[in-house]
């Protein structure tokens, strides 16, 4: 197809840090070597126990090929499971200097059996290294934690803290309680201590609460959008529970939840914080200041105004130093670095978003 074109772009010097790449298992048995026998048997016999009606499939079927790029299926296994294809199809032609792995399924984040969740998380973290990061040093792992059990989450973070191949800590924003809740604070304390950002990636599975304040949506068109509203609610919780006051070194990356909403939410939080300060005296400063200092946003799926330049207003309000490029490879709504911006950012702006902001955040050379 247009691979030769991409090669030309890469060789012209546009290298990128892709902040959202999804690896996958070839089969669930890929995890077995990293699981104790007791949990191997549990996984085979009972499988995951999630808070949704359908087992082993998404409740809102995706619109094409289970939500995957049609060209991303390897000869065997699901998209994202074949490192060679990932390299030849994405990392090489798109000039990916570093890629951040986002391990979503079977990470234990949504598992109701917390002991199983803990075992799965540990196994998934080992597997990320063996299957992807060791053979492809451009890739970085994320520490998957069973977030609903903060004590185990902290021990898993500490176990990985000295290994810089783990770039961040992955948490699902579809949590059981809003993420500002104090039950999650030990995780933030550990993140601050080991100097890793918290990566909030939107999830297809829920922590038990409906996707909207008025229940469940009907169509995938709506559920796709619910990631955006949910991310706003999560950020609101972090601000108003005082997480950023309590953990001043905490950095949060909001992944695949959009970003165009961020200025409006910050204005809204400022306005009502001013009026309601008596209720939240622990929030010392206007919420927008915490967002500006503590939050980073990834680009995919990028918003596309009818007038493309309107997006530059939004990025200006967020800060050109706070947006980081992502593709979401191999998912269907992949953003191509050659075409992601419909307006013309300056060279300096492009370098920041495609590469430098992520390098600075993650301490990459």
């Amino acid at each position, binding site marked *: 197809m247009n691979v030769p074109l991409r090669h030309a772009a890469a060789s012209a010097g546009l290298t990128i840090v892709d902040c959202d790449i999804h690896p996958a298992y070839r089969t669930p048995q890929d995890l077995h070597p990293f699981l104790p026998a007791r949990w191997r048997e549990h996984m085979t016999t009972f499988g995951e126990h999630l808070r949704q009606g359908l087992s082993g499939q998404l409740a809102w079927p995706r619109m094409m090929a289970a939500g995957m790029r049609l060209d991303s299926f390897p000869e065997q296994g699901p998209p994202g499971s074949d490192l060679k294809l990932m390299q030849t199809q994405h990392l090489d032609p798109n000039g990916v200097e570093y890629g951040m792995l986002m391990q979503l399924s079977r990470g234990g984040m949504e598992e109701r059996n917390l002991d199983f969740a803990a075992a799965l998380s540990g196994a998934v973290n080992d597997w990320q290294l063996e299957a992807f990061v060791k053979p492809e040093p451009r890739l970085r792992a994320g520490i998957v934690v069973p977030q609903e059990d903060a004590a185990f989450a902290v021990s898993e973070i500490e176990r990985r803290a000295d290994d810089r191949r783990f770039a961040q800590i992955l948490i699902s924003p579809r949590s059981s309680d*809003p993420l500002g809740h104090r039950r999650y604070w030990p995780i933030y304390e550990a993140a601050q201590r080991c100097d890793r950002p918290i990566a909030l990636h939107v999830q297809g599975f*829920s*922590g038990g609460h409906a996707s*909207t304040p008025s229940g469940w949506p009907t169509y995938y068109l709506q559920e796709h959008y619910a990631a955006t509203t949910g991310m706003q*609610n999560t950020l609101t919780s972090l601000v108003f529970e005082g997480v950023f006051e309590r953990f001043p070194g905490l950095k949060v990356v909001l992944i695949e939840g959009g970003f165009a909403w961020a200025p409006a939410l910050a204005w809204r939080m400022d306005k009502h914080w001013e009026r309601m300060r008596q209720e939240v005296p622990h929030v010392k400063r206007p919420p927008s200041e915490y967002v500006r200092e503590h939050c980073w946003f990834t680009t995919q799926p990028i918003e596309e105004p009818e007038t493309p330049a309107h997006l530059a*207003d939004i990025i200006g309000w967020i800060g050109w130093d706070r947006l980081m490029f992502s593709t979401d490879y191999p998912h269907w709504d992949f953003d191509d670095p050659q075409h992601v911006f419909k307006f013309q950012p300056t060279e300096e702006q492009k370098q920041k978003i495609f590469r430098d902001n992520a390098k600075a955040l993650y301490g990459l050379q």
Partner: protein
Amino acid sequence: MKVPFAGAIDCDLHPAMPGAAALLPYLADYWRDQLVNRHIDKYSFVLTSYPPHSPLSARPDWRQPSGAPAGDLDAIRRHALDPFRSRIGICNVLHGAVALFNEDMAAALCAAVNDWTARELLDREPRLRASILVPTHSPALAVDEIERVAADRRFVQVLLFAMGDMLLGRRLYWPIYAAAEKHGLAIAIHAGSTYRHAPTPSGWPAHRVEDYIAQSTAFESQLLSFLAEGVFQKFPALKLVLSESGVTWLPTLLWRTSKTWRGVRPEVPWIDRPPGEIVREHVRLTLQPLDAPDGETLARTLEHIGSDRMLLFSTDYPHWHFDGDDVLPDGLSAAAVRRLLIDNPLDTYPRLRDGAAMSDNGGQKQEAVR
């Protein structure tokens, strides 16, 4: 800035709701007995979304020495109508009847609130109009109530809440929209929750200010539900008014839905043009509270919205969003001010355009025994 000329149409006023005891004269014998015997008449029916003493719920200089803010007509005239020289004010009585699980009791109380509104407010102040309070979770009874009240053309819209049992675009609710369209009533979704679900997809926030901020995400979900389910295709004359939503969230919704729709339109084949176009045609938003921090950002945001026909003037009286008489934000052109004060409300509410709206058709008090 202040309202520059007389004749504005204020599309969101909140008279204090009557206590349950005040509704007794408007109830049938059965429900009067029920309320009295069960001491329901001693309840306040305050919605959790609007705690009376919270700073958001009433501006300090609009609070009364005794009684509730906006608790009498004189206060409404003195605070909300006269200073802004409004010729019309639309009352949204935010009564907790809608949060009852008993559908029949909810319907009876909604009907009593509507009759109380007609007698105590509309009959006595000709500048006032009102919304029809309905038991949304019981669409058949909601339709009955619309049919019962619709002859009184001083009722100009049907009042629903942003957070409820189910997303409001679902087919279950379509009879409500059919009735509204038939009678030339707009549908208003107002901020507020019956707390049938957690306010966020990750559960229950700790603070009231978080719940209030989450209202804008509820509006996003409801508007997307109307779009996705094809409500505007089914009811092409319907206008949807989002009341007290904050407004500045809208550009993101326009951009994202139009983009995602291009990728998933086989799922919703009845959406036959970009959702942004449909929203601009059918959806209106009341002005206060406006989240933009200054005139420059507001001007940019309005350009992002791409239409000067969507905003409706509102004070949101007595809620506290601005001080003094400066109800209009900076950043609006003179033409935009004229539109939102008068033209847009008239375009939105067919009943504000007819001469009959000024006449009093009281004396039609009907008691519906359910």
